[in-house]
Protein backbone atom coordinates (compact mmCIF):
# COMPACT_ATOMS: atom_id res chain seq x y z
CA UNK A 1 0.00 0.00 0.00
CA UNK A 2 2.78 2.37 1.08
CA UNK A 3 4.88 1.35 -1.90
CA UNK A 4 2.01 2.13 -4.29
CA UNK A 5 1.55 5.60 -2.75
CA UNK A 6 5.27 6.25 -3.14
CA UNK A 7 5.15 5.11 -6.77
CA UNK A 8 2.26 7.51 -7.41
CA UNK A 9 4.18 10.37 -5.83
CA UNK A 10 7.28 9.61 -7.89
CA UNK A 11 5.24 9.32 -11.11
CA UNK A 12 3.70 12.71 -10.32
CA UNK A 13 7.21 14.16 -9.94
CA UNK A 14 8.17 12.78 -13.33
CA UNK A 15 5.05 14.26 -14.94
CA UNK A 16 5.76 17.59 -13.26
CA UNK A 17 9.27 17.64 -14.78
CA UNK A 18 7.89 16.87 -18.26
CA UNK A 19 5.14 19.50 -18.09
CA UNK A 20 7.44 22.23 -16.73
CA UNK A 21 10.17 21.57 -19.30
CA UNK A 22 7.53 21.77 -22.06
CA UNK A 23 6.07 24.93 -20.51
CA UNK A 24 9.47 26.62 -20.45
CA UNK A 25 10.19 25.74 -24.07
CA UNK A 26 6.80 26.93 -25.31
CA UNK A 27 7.10 30.38 -23.78
CA UNK A 28 8.53 32.34 -26.70
CA UNK A 29 6.94 30.52 -29.62
CA UNK A 30 4.43 33.10 -30.76
CA UNK A 31 5.35 34.28 -34.22
CA UNK A 32 2.26 33.69 -36.41
CA UNK A 33 1.54 37.44 -36.54
CA UNK A 34 4.91 38.14 -38.24
CA UNK A 35 3.89 36.01 -41.23
CA UNK A 36 0.65 38.00 -41.62
CA UNK A 37 2.44 41.33 -41.14
CA UNK A 38 5.11 40.54 -43.76
CA UNK A 39 2.47 39.15 -46.13
CA UNK A 40 0.58 42.44 -45.96
CA UNK A 41 3.90 44.29 -46.43
CA UNK A 42 4.62 42.30 -49.63
CA UNK A 43 1.16 43.22 -50.98
CA UNK A 44 1.64 46.92 -50.11
CA UNK A 45 5.10 46.96 -51.75
CA UNK A 46 3.81 45.16 -54.85
CA UNK A 47 0.83 47.51 -55.22
CA UNK A 48 2.99 50.60 -54.64
CA UNK A 49 5.63 49.44 -57.15
CA UNK A 50 3.02 48.51 -59.77
CA UNK A 51 0.70 51.51 -59.59
CA UNK A 52 2.99 54.09 -58.02
CA UNK A 53 5.94 53.19 -60.29
CA UNK A 54 8.31 54.00 -57.44
CA UNK A 55 11.75 52.47 -56.92
CA UNK A 56 11.38 53.23 -53.24
CA UNK A 57 8.32 50.98 -52.82
CA UNK A 58 10.17 47.79 -51.82
CA UNK A 59 13.02 49.23 -49.71
CA UNK A 60 10.72 51.64 -47.82
CA UNK A 61 8.03 49.00 -47.17
CA UNK A 62 10.57 46.37 -46.12
CA UNK A 63 12.40 48.75 -43.75
CA UNK A 64 9.06 49.84 -42.23
CA UNK A 65 7.94 46.21 -41.82
CA UNK A 66 11.30 45.38 -40.23
CA UNK A 67 11.02 48.25 -37.73
CA UNK A 68 7.36 47.45 -36.90
CA UNK A 69 8.21 43.74 -36.42
CA UNK A 70 11.14 44.56 -34.12
CA UNK A 71 9.05 46.95 -31.98
CA UNK A 72 6.11 44.53 -31.63
CA UNK A 73 8.42 41.55 -31.00
CA UNK A 74 10.37 43.38 -28.28
CA UNK A 75 7.08 44.33 -26.56
CA UNK A 76 5.64 40.82 -26.85
CA UNK A 77 8.73 39.02 -25.62
CA UNK A 78 9.40 41.43 -22.72
CA UNK A 79 9.71 39.35 -19.57
CA UNK A 80 9.71 36.12 -21.59
CA UNK A 81 12.85 34.01 -21.33
CA UNK A 82 14.83 33.18 -24.43
CA UNK A 83 15.13 29.54 -25.41
CA UNK A 84 17.73 27.78 -27.54
CA UNK A 85 14.97 26.82 -29.97
CA UNK A 86 13.67 30.39 -30.21
CA UNK A 87 17.18 31.71 -30.82
CA UNK A 88 17.85 29.12 -33.54
CA UNK A 89 14.62 29.95 -35.40
CA UNK A 90 15.18 33.70 -34.91
CA UNK A 91 18.71 33.41 -36.32
CA UNK A 92 17.44 31.67 -39.46
CA UNK A 93 14.86 34.38 -40.19
CA UNK A 94 17.06 37.33 -39.24
CA UNK A 95 19.96 36.18 -41.42
CA UNK A 96 17.54 35.43 -44.29
CA UNK A 97 16.00 38.92 -44.01
CA UNK A 98 19.36 40.71 -43.88
CA UNK A 99 20.79 38.68 -46.83
CA UNK A 100 17.67 39.24 -48.91
CA UNK A 101 17.66 42.97 -48.19
CA UNK A 102 21.36 43.45 -49.07
CA UNK A 103 21.17 41.46 -52.33
CA UNK A 104 17.95 43.08 -53.56
CA UNK A 105 19.13 46.61 -52.67
CA UNK A 106 22.43 45.93 -54.50
CA UNK A 107 20.54 44.73 -57.59
CA UNK A 108 18.34 47.84 -57.43
CA UNK A 109 21.25 50.28 -57.03
CA UNK A 110 23.24 48.72 -59.90
CA UNK A 111 20.06 48.77 -62.04
CA UNK A 112 20.35 45.04 -62.71
CA UNK A 113 16.80 44.59 -61.53
CA UNK A 114 14.85 41.90 -63.33
CA UNK A 115 11.41 40.72 -62.18
CA UNK A 116 12.23 37.03 -62.78
CA UNK A 117 15.47 37.20 -60.79
CA UNK A 118 13.82 39.33 -58.07
CA UNK A 119 10.97 36.82 -57.59
CA UNK A 120 13.28 33.81 -57.83
CA UNK A 121 15.57 35.20 -55.10
CA UNK A 122 12.67 36.03 -52.77
CA UNK A 123 11.02 32.62 -53.35
CA UNK A 124 14.28 30.75 -52.87
CA UNK A 125 15.24 32.59 -49.66
CA UNK A 126 11.77 32.31 -48.10
CA UNK A 127 11.60 28.64 -49.15
CA UNK A 128 14.95 27.95 -47.49
CA UNK A 129 14.03 29.78 -44.25
CA UNK A 130 10.64 28.03 -44.07
CA UNK A 131 12.22 24.64 -44.76
CA UNK A 132 14.89 25.15 -42.08
CA UNK A 133 12.27 26.24 -39.50
CA UNK A 134 10.00 23.35 -40.49
CA UNK A 135 12.79 20.81 -40.03
CA UNK A 136 13.79 22.26 -36.63
CA UNK A 137 10.15 22.43 -35.43
CA UNK A 138 9.09 19.20 -37.19
CA UNK A 139 6.15 21.16 -38.66
CA UNK A 140 4.73 19.67 -41.87
CA UNK A 141 2.50 22.66 -42.61
CA UNK A 142 5.48 24.99 -42.68
CA UNK A 143 7.38 22.55 -44.86
CA UNK A 144 4.46 22.75 -47.31
CA UNK A 145 4.96 26.55 -47.33
CA UNK A 146 8.64 26.01 -48.13
CA UNK A 147 7.65 23.84 -51.10
CA UNK A 148 5.18 26.51 -52.32
CA UNK A 149 7.83 29.26 -52.07
CA UNK A 150 10.41 27.15 -53.90
CA UNK A 151 7.76 26.32 -56.51
CA UNK A 152 7.08 30.03 -57.01
CA UNK A 153 10.85 30.63 -57.39
CA UNK A 154 11.07 27.96 -60.09
CA UNK A 155 7.89 29.25 -61.79
CA UNK A 156 9.33 32.77 -61.96
CA UNK A 157 12.41 31.40 -63.77
CA UNK A 158 10.35 29.66 -66.45
CA UNK A 159 7.19 31.78 -66.76
CA UNK A 160 6.44 35.20 -68.17
CA UNK A 161 6.71 38.35 -66.03
CA UNK A 162 2.96 38.27 -65.29
CA UNK A 163 3.12 34.59 -64.36
CA UNK A 164 6.05 35.34 -62.03
CA UNK A 165 3.98 38.01 -60.25
CA UNK A 166 0.94 35.70 -60.00
CA UNK A 167 3.12 32.93 -58.52
CA UNK A 168 4.61 35.40 -56.01
CA UNK A 169 1.23 36.85 -54.97
CA UNK A 170 -0.31 33.38 -54.63
CA UNK A 171 2.64 32.12 -52.55
CA UNK A 172 2.36 35.25 -50.37
CA UNK A 173 -1.34 34.57 -49.80
CA UNK A 174 -0.95 30.90 -48.85
CA UNK A 175 2.41 30.97 -47.08
CA UNK A 176 2.16 34.33 -45.30
CA UNK A 177 -1.51 35.21 -44.76
CA UNK A 178 -3.17 31.77 -44.53
CA UNK A 179 -0.24 30.10 -42.78
CA UNK A 180 0.17 33.10 -40.42
CA UNK A 181 -3.49 33.04 -39.40
CA UNK A 182 -3.30 29.24 -38.94
CA UNK A 183 -0.19 29.63 -36.75
CA UNK A 184 -1.91 32.34 -34.67
CA UNK A 185 -4.96 30.10 -34.10
CA UNK A 186 -2.67 27.24 -33.04
CA UNK A 187 -0.74 29.49 -30.66
CA UNK A 188 -3.95 30.81 -29.13
CA UNK A 189 -5.29 27.25 -28.66
CA UNK A 190 -2.05 26.25 -26.95
CA UNK A 191 -2.20 29.26 -24.62
CA UNK A 192 -5.82 28.43 -23.74
CA UNK A 193 -4.92 24.81 -23.01
CA UNK A 194 -3.66 26.10 -19.65
CA UNK A 195 -0.67 25.89 -17.36
CA UNK A 196 0.17 23.11 -14.94
CA UNK A 197 1.08 24.83 -11.69
CA UNK A 198 3.50 23.26 -9.25
Amino acid at each position, binding site marked *: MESKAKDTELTERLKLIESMVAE*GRQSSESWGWTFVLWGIAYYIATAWAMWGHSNLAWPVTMITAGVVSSVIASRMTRGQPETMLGRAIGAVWASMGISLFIVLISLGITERYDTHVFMAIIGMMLGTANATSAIILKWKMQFACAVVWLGSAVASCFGTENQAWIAFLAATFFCQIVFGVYAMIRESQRRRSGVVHA
Partner: protein
Amino acid sequence: MPEMPELNPVIHGKLRLALLSLLSGVDEAEFTWLREKTGSTDGNLGAQLMKLEEAGYVAMKKRFVLRKPQTLYRMTEKGRAALTEYISALKELLGSAI
Protein backbone atom coordinates in the same frame (compact mmCIF):
# COMPACT_ATOMS: atom_id res chain seq x y z
CA MET B 1 19.21 -7.04 -3.18
CA PRO B 2 20.52 -4.11 -5.29
CA GLU B 3 20.85 -0.75 -3.52
CA MET B 4 18.15 1.73 -4.51
CA PRO B 5 19.28 5.25 -5.44
CA GLU B 6 18.42 8.12 -3.11
CA LEU B 7 16.57 11.17 -4.37
CA ASN B 8 18.31 14.50 -3.91
CA PRO B 9 16.27 16.23 -1.13
CA VAL B 10 17.07 19.73 -2.45
CA ILE B 11 15.48 18.91 -5.80
CA HIS B 12 12.70 16.65 -4.51
CA GLY B 13 10.59 19.56 -3.18
CA LYS B 14 7.69 20.04 -5.61
CA LEU B 15 8.24 23.76 -6.24
CA ARG B 16 12.03 23.46 -6.42
CA LEU B 17 11.67 20.60 -8.91
CA ALA B 18 9.26 22.68 -11.01
CA LEU B 19 11.66 25.63 -10.95
CA LEU B 20 14.66 23.59 -12.03
CA SER B 21 12.60 21.92 -14.79
CA LEU B 22 11.41 25.31 -16.06
CA LEU B 23 14.92 26.75 -16.01
CA SER B 24 16.32 23.72 -17.84
CA GLY B 25 14.44 24.74 -21.00
CA VAL B 26 15.40 28.43 -21.08
CA ASP B 27 18.59 30.49 -21.02
CA GLU B 28 17.48 32.63 -18.09
CA ALA B 29 14.14 33.67 -16.64
CA GLU B 30 12.69 36.56 -14.69
CA PHE B 31 11.32 36.09 -11.18
CA THR B 32 7.88 37.24 -12.36
CA TRP B 33 7.86 34.66 -15.18
CA LEU B 34 8.73 31.86 -12.75
CA ARG B 35 5.97 33.06 -10.41
CA GLU B 36 3.44 33.07 -13.26
CA LYS B 37 4.41 29.58 -14.45
CA THR B 38 4.43 27.98 -11.02
CA GLY B 39 1.47 29.89 -9.55
CA SER B 40 3.51 30.39 -6.39
CA THR B 41 3.55 33.33 -3.97
CA ASP B 42 6.45 35.80 -3.91
CA GLY B 43 7.59 34.69 -0.46
CA ASN B 44 7.55 30.96 -1.12
CA LEU B 45 9.14 31.36 -4.55
CA GLY B 46 11.91 33.56 -3.17
CA ALA B 47 12.64 31.09 -0.35
CA GLN B 48 12.79 28.08 -2.69
CA LEU B 49 14.97 29.91 -5.20
CA MET B 50 17.33 30.86 -2.38
CA LYS B 51 17.64 27.18 -1.39
CA LEU B 52 18.48 26.28 -4.98
CA GLU B 53 20.97 29.15 -5.13
CA GLU B 54 22.64 28.04 -1.89
CA ALA B 55 23.00 24.54 -3.34
CA GLY B 56 24.67 26.08 -6.41
CA TYR B 57 21.91 24.85 -8.74
CA VAL B 58 20.78 28.28 -9.92
CA ALA B 59 22.52 31.63 -10.31
CA MET B 60 20.81 34.96 -9.78
CA LYS B 61 21.56 38.39 -11.22
CA LYS B 62 19.85 41.74 -10.91
CA ARG B 63 19.61 44.40 -13.59
CA PHE B 64 17.59 47.48 -14.48
CA VAL B 65 15.45 47.63 -17.63
CA LEU B 66 13.80 51.00 -18.32
CA ARG B 67 14.59 51.96 -14.70
CA LYS B 68 12.68 48.93 -13.41
CA PRO B 69 14.58 46.29 -11.41
CA GLN B 70 14.62 42.77 -12.80
CA THR B 71 15.78 39.61 -11.06
CA LEU B 72 16.94 36.91 -13.42
CA TYR B 73 17.68 33.27 -12.67
CA ARG B 74 19.55 30.70 -14.72
CA MET B 75 20.38 27.08 -14.17
CA THR B 76 24.05 26.32 -13.48
CA GLU B 77 25.98 23.32 -14.83
CA LYS B 78 25.85 21.85 -11.32
CA GLY B 79 22.06 22.26 -11.33
CA ARG B 80 21.72 20.63 -14.73
CA ALA B 81 23.85 17.67 -13.61
CA ALA B 82 21.82 17.35 -10.38
CA LEU B 83 18.50 17.39 -12.27
CA THR B 84 19.77 14.77 -14.75
CA GLU B 85 20.91 12.59 -11.85
CA TYR B 86 17.57 13.10 -10.08
CA ILE B 87 15.60 12.01 -13.18
CA SER B 88 17.78 8.91 -13.58
CA ALA B 89 17.26 8.01 -9.93
CA LEU B 90 13.52 8.62 -10.26
CA LYS B 91 13.29 6.35 -13.30
CA GLU B 92 15.34 3.68 -11.56
CA LEU B 93 13.11 3.80 -8.48
CA LEU B 94 9.95 3.61 -10.55
CA GLY B 95 11.37 0.76 -12.62
CA SER B 96 8.57 -1.11 -14.30
CA ALA B 97 5.92 1.31 -13.02
CA ILE B 98 6.65 3.67 -15.97
